[in-house]
């Protein structure tokens, strides 16, 4: 399985209290990504990191890195802070849809088969803040329209329990599974997010595979309460190797993209370790059965 990295993790990074790293040009980020052993692709943030095909294609050719996905940022703009896809305001939803369509246009231009989006502004902070039913229907309608635009480009939607909203609308992987059934989106399956929301990530993955939903992988580790985007396998090793086995058993041949946030570390060092660890454990073969296996 080919590996990729999300390029924004090379630039300036921040949390609520601190900032780390230097702001870097797209070209500098491509240079750094190209230095990571085993990494063959990158995920570019649209429109923040790049919004024109020529620049991305030139960097891709120069560094021999493929574009694994165009990642659409639907959370950064102030107009989206109280929701984008699910917003009660039709104008806000329309703007969100326009961004998704523009990202698909870009994907067509550079020959990338997918865009991915984590609609993190869609959710709530307080009880009695949002109309859950209407928000869900709005989301289906907005995403349905995006799916039908350039249908040859798959729109993958990423689940996440929270951040920056206290409760994300697509808090669990199964919420995106429902969306897939309702409007035909694919899923960006984030292993760390799935851990935070509970359950075994491999179990959800296998179900989605059985249902024939287009899947794409973001990999990291986390605590069970927060998406720390840690080095893969460092906190939940058993879940990690089980998930890699599930990828293998379902014949997944797509990208494994590191969603590992090196805020306290040198990005190159951490992402290199992540790629090596992922490659190593992907090749590991478990015994035919464990003593606790039920079958």
């Amino acid at each position, binding site marked *: 399985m080919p590996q990729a990295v999300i390029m924004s993790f090379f630039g300036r990074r921040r949390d609520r*209290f*601190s900032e*780390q790293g230097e702001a870097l040009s797209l070209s500098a980020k491509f240079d750094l990504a190209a230095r990571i052993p085993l990494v063959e692709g990158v995920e570019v943030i649209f429109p923040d990191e790049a919004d024109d095909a020529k620049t991305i294609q030139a960097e891709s050719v120069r560094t021999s890195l493929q574009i694994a996905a165009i990642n659409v940022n639907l959370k950064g703009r102030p107009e989206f802070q109280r929701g984008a896809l699910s917003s009660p305001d039709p104008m806000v939803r329309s703007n969100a849809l326009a961004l998704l369509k523009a990202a698909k246009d870009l994907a067509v231009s550079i020959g990338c088969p997918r865009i991915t989006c984590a609609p*993190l502004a869609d959710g709530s*902070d307080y009880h009695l803040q949002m109309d859950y039913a209407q928000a869900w229907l709005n989301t289906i309608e907005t995403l349905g329209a995006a799916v039908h635009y350039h249908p040859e480009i798959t729109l993958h939607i990423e689940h996440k329990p929270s951040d*920056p909203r206290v409760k994300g609308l697509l808090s669990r992987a199964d919420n995106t599974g429902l969306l897939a059934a309702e409007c035909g989106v694919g899923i960006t399956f984030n292993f760390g997010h799935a851990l935070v929301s509970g359950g075994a990530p491999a179990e959800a993955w296998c179900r989605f595979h059985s249902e024939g939903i287009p899947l794409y992988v973001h990999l990291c580790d986390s*605590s069970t309460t927060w998406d720390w985007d840690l080095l893969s396998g460092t906190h939940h090793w058993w879940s990690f190797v089980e998930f890699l086995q599930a990828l293998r058993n379902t014949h997944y041949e797509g990208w494994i993209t590191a969603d590992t946030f090196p805020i*306290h570390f040198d990005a190159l060092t951490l992402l290199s370790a992540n790629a090596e660890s992922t490659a190593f454990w992907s090749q590991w073969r478990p015994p035919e059965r464990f003593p606790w296996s039920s079958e």
Partner: protein
Amino acid sequence: MKHAIITSFLGKLKDRFCEYQEPRTLEQKFELMAQIPGATGSEVVHPYEVPSPEELLSQLARFRFSVSAVNVNIKLDPIFQAGALTNPDPSVRAKAVQMIHAAKDYAAAIGADKVTCCPLSDGYDYSFQTDYGKAWDRLIGAVRDSAAHRPDVPLFLEYKPSETRVHCTLDSAAKTLLLIGAAKAENLGVTLDIGHSIYGGETPAEAIALCATAGVPYYVHINDNNGKWDWDLMAGTCNLWSYVEVLYYLKRYRYDGWITSDTSPVRIDPVECFAYNIRITQRIWDWLDEIDLDEIGHHLERHDVMPVIKMLEPGIFPQVAVSMRG
């Protein structure tokens, strides 16, 4: 009851992905605070937010505000990335301790009665990242050194389960009390943040009781969350019963310190946010005056919760006529 606000929440705020509100000078923050009914105290962040002591005193006089605490920030400087008070490098620890000393000097200059410190960069993100025993010993030593300077200005330590580290070293009320005991210094206290206590798996009222029974001074930060993360939501909006219990215990222990809002008004109006915090806290506080607290104590002695719930229920839903059917 005295209500204060951490003034940094009245300026520009950010999370990992977004920015909120506007940047404001401390004076502009005071102007905003003056619009919040009941707010009379300010917790100011040293050294990043404050002007000279003379200038601050002038601004405080103009707005008739007091300072509830000087909050010393030992997490922002990149030198503290791998820890401040627990850092293996003695020069980094010395810098952190020196910053606490400077905050104490500042507090003394403006007549503030305490410095509060939340050592958020002290902790770890991965297994095998830190030597836990050595980190604890370093923390004890650094706290002792910090306390020794200007003992007339007590140092209150704020615990928090995580952020910016995956695991903060000082993560619970009990551990903070252990630290205070190990440091063997008289002039230490606990800054008890209700939200930190909730998402750390504590019962906040029990944490207050632990401090009170240990005879350790405590200072209260209010907010709320969903039990998983320090969202700094408005007080009581997630865990109302828990907040009523907190205020009951504060009343029982005759707490006369500041109730300081450590609440983050992202995506909501800051004046409305803090006005609500103060209003709901004061309403519960005043309502508890109408309750027979001794009777609550009597039932607590017997683990008899139903009579307590029956005592409090009409206060929470006072106007509802209950229709009994079936």
